[in-house]
Structures are given as C-alpha cells and as structure tokens.
C-alpha cells in the first residue's frame, strides 16, 4: 500500500471530519477504489505502450493488460472475453448497442421497445432513431417501478429488432426481471439489450442464464475510473452492429480508436473487486439502507418510499418527504451530498420523469431525495444523516404552508391552485 492509497482511503471513510459533506450520491458516481488506482498508475508512465502495437514489448505488455481487463469484465457477467468491447462509458455503450443493432438489421426489423424510466441516454438515442424512421414503443412501469411482463409480451412483435430494459434504475434503484425479459426476447427473436451501469457489481448477472444479447457497463459507477465503459456483444447467436466510430478496426471493428490501457486496467480491476466483494457488500449496504429508512420513518411522519424495496439494489433509497420541497431540503441537509427529483434541481424545471412514471403526482415528485450508499459509507455516517434529515425536514415543515394545512386537516389537493 502506498501513502497515496492510505490518504485516499481515510478521506473516503472520514469525509465528514475533513469538513466535506458526507457523500451519499453513489448512483451519480463513485470514487475510484484506491486499489484500482494503484493498478492503473504504471500504465500511464513506464508501461505506456500502444496495446495495438504488435512489433515490440511495449505493445505486447499493454495488450496483455488490456486482455486481462477484458477477462475481468467478462467474468462478472458470465461472458467470454471476446464478447467485451471497451468504450468511453455507458452512454456510448447504449448508443452503440441501440444504433448499431438498429442500423444493421434495419431492412428486416424496424421496431424498438424500451421503457419510460430508462436513462436519458437510452431515451434520447431512441428519439433519434425515431426521427430516422424507426418505430419505438416506450413501455410504462407499474407504481413500484417494475415493468409488466404481460405488457412487454404484447408489444414485442415480429418486427421488433431490439428490446432495451435497464438492469437497475439510477433514480429509484429498482431491478427489472432480466431473466424473464431475456427469455421473452429469445422466444420472440428480438435482441435483448440491458443498460447495467447501475446493476453490475450490485446484483448477480449472467448473460447466458438471462439471455442477454447486449449489456452496457460503466467504469465510474463501480469504483473504477470515469471515461471508460464496456459493451457486451453476444457471439453465439451472433449480434452484429454498425459501428459508431470508424477507423483502425480495433475492438473487432465495432469501436475503432486506440484503447487507453490504464482505463481498461481500471475498469477490469474494478470488476474483479466488485465480483469478489459483492456478497458481503450487498449484505452490509442492505443493512445500512434499512437502518437509514427505519431511522427516518421512525422519527418523521409522511415519508414515502419511491420504487419497490425488495427488487432493488442495496445502496439506493429514494424518499418523498411530503410538504417539503426537495431543493429546499437539499439546502437544509448541506452536510450531505444527495440528489433530488425536484424540478428546481434540473435545467428543465420539470420534476423527475422517473418518479412521474411511477404515477407520483408532481407535488410528491417535488419532495423527493435520493440517497446513494456505497463502499465507503459507514454506519456513523448513516446515523448522522438520519439526525440531519429529521432536523431539516422538521425545520422546513414548520415553515411550510402545506404542512400547516395538513395539520389543520385540509387536503391540499382540494384547493384550486393557480398554476404558474
């Protein structure tokens, strides 16, 4: 262990003491695990070779490192390393999967199925494909955030080329029934793509058992570096893609460009650590998450959980604090780094489309906070967060006219509000 490692670790664990807010936004991004950084460092400096250079040792050792990383990524999802393509991140992976497949098979099939709660990079890619003339079905979700398999069955037809359903949702953490979706797609002859940026390392994944044909993976959501991701592309039965990036034909022609050895090594090591520690981490985070939920609900009335609790990654909690606006609340919990589904935190001024898709009215969507727990979250931090949230919510409810009405027995929905 180097000195740097120790310093980084202590900051991660005791961020509170250094005067910085407690980081509870692990679905936004994660810190690089110091063990990952340590593995990456030599590949920036002394081992700087181009992994595609075939003529000398510099190239060979870089290639070997990249291929080892490819195996580490493949291992965590039960794939063969030949089926892993390195990309710049999950956004690129999602673009490549959807556009690549749609364009390759466009003469045979032109229909795409996805879900309204997908990440913006899937939805925006689908919108783009719609403009090109593809037909896209956006499947709704139930109030628990999960899709209805019977509804999926109905919309997938013999023109459906690809079905894209995320593994775990970035806002509410709910885990979709991937194996069932995979079986359905296989039966109907459609490819199954899943954006697993939030799921890899959090839940067991097996591309063969789940009949997954394409899977997007992100480095920085699993304690790896930003700027690197991967796309799993099934070889048997073979999935073919039109590449987004043309060039020297790297990554089996599907993604040209010189690979970054340190970034590949980083995501590989991140996968290896995640795979080794997933069982223990799931148990530990689940316990902390339950502690946070129970601690808040024991002391505050009118707190509602968004999304199913059982089918959920362990490190996510998304709560609506009725009668308290989310951005105002985030300002109140300034010792916590969290996210809100409130309109005011987004550029669009629209409340979270994911929460709206669960059937939450705009009012409740405005009152939500997302707590993301992760590898460096401690019990002491959770206990502090509970106290801090309870205090802030009580303070803001004292000055909330809606809370006052609620306490007076007035239903705020019975009032005719002037929209502005």
């Amino acid at each position, binding site marked *: 262990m180097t000195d740097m490692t120790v310093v980084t670790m202590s900051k991660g664990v005791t961020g509170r003491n250094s005067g910085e807010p407690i980081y509870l936004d692990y679905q936004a991004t994660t810190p690089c695990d110091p063990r990952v950084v340590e593995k990456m460092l030599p590949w920036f400096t002394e081992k700087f070779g181009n992994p595609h250079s075939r003529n000398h040792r510099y190239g060979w050792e870089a290639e070997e490192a990249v291929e080892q990383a490819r195996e580490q990524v493949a291992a965590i999802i039960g794939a063969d390393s030949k089926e892993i393509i390195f990309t710049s991140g999950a956004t690129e992976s999602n673009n490549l999967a959807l556009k690549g497949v749609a364009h390759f098979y466009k003469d045979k099939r032109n229909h795409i199925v996805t879900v309204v709660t997908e990440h913006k990079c899937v939805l925006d890619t689908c919108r783009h494909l719609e403009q090109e003339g593809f037909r896209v079905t956006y499947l709704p979700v139930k109030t628990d955030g999960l899709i209805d398999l019977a509804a999926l069955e109905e919309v997938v037809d013999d023109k459906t080329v690809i079905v894209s359903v995320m593994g775990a949702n970035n806002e509410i953490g709910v885990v979709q029934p991937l194996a069932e979706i995979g079986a359905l797609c296989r039966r109907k002859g459609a490819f199954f793509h899943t954006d697993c940026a939030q799921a890899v390392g959090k839940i067991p994944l097996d591309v063969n058992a789940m009949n997954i044909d394409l899977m997007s993976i992100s480095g920085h959501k699993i304690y790896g570096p930003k700027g690197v991701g991967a796309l799993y592309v099934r070889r048997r039965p073979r999935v073919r893609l039109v590449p987004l990036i043309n060039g020297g034909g790297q990554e089996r022609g599907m993604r040209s460009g010189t690979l970054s050895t340190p970034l590949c090594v980083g995501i590989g090591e991140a996968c290896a650590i995640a795979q080794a520690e997933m069982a223990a981490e799931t148990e530990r985070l689940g316990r902390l998450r339950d502690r946070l939920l129970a601690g808040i609900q024991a002391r505050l009335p009118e707190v509602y959980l968004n999304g199913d609790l059982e089918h959920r990654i362990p490190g996510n909690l998304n709560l609506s604090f009725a*009668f*308290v*606006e*989310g*951005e*105002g609340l985030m*300002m*109140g919990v300034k010792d916590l780094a969290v996210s809100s589904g*409130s*309109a*005011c*935190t987004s*550029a669009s*001024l629209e*409340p979270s489309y994911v929460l709206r898709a669960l059937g939450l*009215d*705009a*009012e409740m969507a*405005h009152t939500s906070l997302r707590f993301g727990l992760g590898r460096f979250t401690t019990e002491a931090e959770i206990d502090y967060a509970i106290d801090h949230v309870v205090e802030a919510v009580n303070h803001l409810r*004292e*000055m*909330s*006219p*809606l*809370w*006052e009405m609620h306490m007076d027995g007035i239903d*705020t929905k019975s009032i005719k*509000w*002037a*929209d*502005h």
Partner: protein
Amino acid sequence: MAYSDKVIDHYEHPRNVGAFGKEEHNVGTGLVGAPACGDVMKLQIKVSPEGIIEDAKFKTFGCGSAIASSSLVTEWVKGKTLDEASKIKNTEIAHELALPPVKIHCSVLAEDAIKAAVADYRKKNATDEAAE
C-alpha cells in the same frame, strides 16, 4: 446550484416565519403558487387602523430562493402603506437576493404574494364596511 450569501442567510435565518389568525379583521392573507409547480407561498400582513402594515408573517414550500424571497418581503412590507407595499417589484427582490435567471419566478411569486395579501385585506374590510 450556487446560492448568494443573502439567499443562504434568509434560508438559514428566515425572518418572520409563522401565521396570524386568518379570520382576524386586520389580517390580509395571500396564498400563491401551486404544489405541483414546487412553490407555494403564504404571506400575511397585519394592518393598523391607519392603514400601515405593522407586522408580516410567511410560510413557504419551495427551494431556497423561494424561502428567501418570501422572508425578504416580510421585512420590506413592514412600515409601508398598502399602496407602497403593492409597488414592490419582483426585479427589486431578484436584485437584492442576486437570484439567477432560473430563479426569477421565485421573486415573481413573492410579488404576487404581497398583492394577494393586500387584496385579501381590502376585500375583507370592504365587505365589513358594506355590512355596517
């Protein structure tokens, strides 16, 4: 979003949070905004027999800028006549709090809240006069 020091000050130390009895003769209540839009302000003024606003209270559901805007106007309306209070412009509020463009609607809402409170007071008292 980075807030100005004045917004943070009003958020952390809101002035005049609370409520007067809605039914009191000398109280005007303005309730503006909508929960679905993420902002609701309730502003109340207490008016002296001479027509001077002698006290004000607010409660706000909203972001930091909305809370600060309403807190600020409770300070500004005190000591003013109803006409003077009605002349407070959202631009003055936005300027005082250094609100960014995306938060201008908070100052607009605060201006609306003053006007609504004044209108409520006048309506109440006009009815009383008519009844006498």
